[in-house]
């Protein structure tokens, strides 16, 4: 397996005997300047190893209320995919070893053109792309151009994804990590997560060679660390970060 920032990031965390902290935010929320400052904070003292730069979309059908509201607000300020890529470039210059993931609905990427997107993302120093609505069957149209530029993709694993399908999804993405969705439903912090989650994470890890992170419903680092201890290689916090940024709005 070839080494890259992602593999180094997970290897380092493993050596330090801690889970990887993946932080998501909606780019441009509440303002472009504040979200950029938050990225620096998260990757600095905030302890995040991986930053997911959310691309705002007009029809965020996989997101809960918090991230949706943030996306609409970012769109009102005219934030585009091109802006997200430019931000990635600045983040890369300040954080050479941070893992940068562009997190988007596929239409926005498709609209820019997959080749143009892959070239721009590579030039900016993006490591991987997570396209929410681009499952295994459709992903080659984006994965091929990404591979051509040395980028990888982060695939989603759902609660009902069967074991043989998990293996197929993981195949060819050995230089990346898998994003295991903790619950059926949309993004958003939750009071509690299903008790069978630990067993499911164990099963995913047993099926694939790459690291696995758990996401959806996790609202603090303490909760994330406790949840994945011994069962996954990392955790994602998203809506809680976005919510905190918004304050009263």
């Amino acid at each position, binding site marked *: 397996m070839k080494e890259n920032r992602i593999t180094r990031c997970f290897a380092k965390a493993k050596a330090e005997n801690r889970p990887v902290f993946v932080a998501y935010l909606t780019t441009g929320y509440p303002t472009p300047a504040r979200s950029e400052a938050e990225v620096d904070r998260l990757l600095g003292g905030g302890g995040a190893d991986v930053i997911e730069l959310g691309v705002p979309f007009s029809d965020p059908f996989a997101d809960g209320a918090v991230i949706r509201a943030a996306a609409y607000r970012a769109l009102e300020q005219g934030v585009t995919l091109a802006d997200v890529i430019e931000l990635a470039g600045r983040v890369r210059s300040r954080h050479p070893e941070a893992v940068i993931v562009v997190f988007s609905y596929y239409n926005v990427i498709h609209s*820019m053109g997959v080749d143009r997107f892959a070239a721009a993302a590579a030039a900016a120093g993006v490591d991987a792309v997570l396209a929410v609505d681009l499952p295994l069957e459709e992903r080659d149209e984006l994965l091929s151009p990404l591979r051509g530029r040395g980028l990888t993709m982060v695939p989603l694993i759902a609660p009902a*994804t069967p074991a043989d399908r998990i293996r197929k999804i993981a195949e060819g993405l050995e230089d990346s990590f898998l994003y295991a969705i903790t619950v059926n439903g949309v993004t958003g912090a939750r009071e509690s997560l299903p008790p069978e989650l630990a067993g499911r994470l164990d099963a995913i890890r047993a099926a694939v060679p790459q690291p696995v992170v758990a996401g959806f419903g996790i609202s603090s680092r303490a909760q994330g660390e406790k949840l994945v201890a011994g069962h996954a290689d990392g955790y994602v916090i998203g809506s809680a970060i976005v919510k905190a940024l918004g304050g009263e709005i």
Partner: protein
Amino acid sequence: MNSHYGIYGGQYVAETLMAPLAEIERAYEEAKNDPAFREEFRGILREYVGRETPLTEARRLSEHLGGARIALKREDLNHTGAHKVNNTIGQALLARRMGKRRLIAETGAGMHGVATATVAALFGMPCEIYMGAIDVERQSPNVERMKMLGAAVHAVSEGSATLKDAMNEAIRDWVADPDGTFYVIGTVAGPHPYPAMVRDFQSVIGAEARRQCLEKFGRLPDQAIACVGGGSNAMGLFAGFIDDSEVKLVGVEAGGRGLASGEHAASINGGRLGVLHGAKTMLLQTDSGQIVDTYSVSAGLDYPGVGPEHCQLHDTGRAEYTVIEDAEAIAAFDALCRFEGIIPALESSHALAEAIRRAPGLPRDSVLLVNLSGRGDKDMENVMRWKRENPPPAK
């Protein structure tokens, strides 16, 4: 089953929905090949919906125009007043067969919501309908009908507060409970297998119309014309004639205030390739890939995408897609009221307007088949408001 139509269609959904979609596809394949399922479907269409619907020749209108004979496929005479019920019965039967306990649906004009609420009552299943807040306001009689039928109606007020946002919310509901819930999609859009399944359930329109044309005119129609929002009534009609290459297929998109104004819902004529709600299709979107608000006087055509199979039919040239603006649709609405004593839905009025445009230039023995996909009772207020806001120029 074929999951793509050329470059269009597919399953562009989050991984959470892949297992439920596979389950639906398996169940639908089985059901389709099960004579008992087909007979139950046909029986309900016959005894509950009142099929078959008649083919009515619009004699006075045709004479007035002085060209082709215009024949109307009377989907407005179905129980609930539109073609939508053909599909909701099919999907509800499938949901019951799969052991799902709850139906959800999106609706724009409210006709699909009413049709879903109707079958939910018929089958004794709880039902929740998502509807854009703007549509709730402009289609309030349908909201009352859904409630009367026992459905819960959720007004969706974010985004553009119309059909696309209702569909987003329905998807969010479905993804939270994919095991117990069946999402009844109202048109030939969405991820595979919905476009194929909805087309199949609606193909009864074209199958009947083909036979009726042969019986009535001793020949096939020269053209089969239907309005296209998502495009289910059009796919249902086209399905009957797809192999008859001599029959021209014509889809009519909503031109709103004109393509140049940007205020329309013509995805094929005015859109660009993209991915929304599970399918790759032609979409109305900005240069940076954000979906734009659509506009049409007809709420049922007010969707920024279109069924993927229509895009393929457009590319191959098997069907042509035209645009009718509000004013012409309203004129066609008036014409059918006055000449034939039929109040058509504003959606169907777009198809009718295209026939009115074409008829005068055609020989007397030619036949234009128009899918009169729904009745217009629901549109009274909108038509009156439109006329108030757009008075005829002073003489």
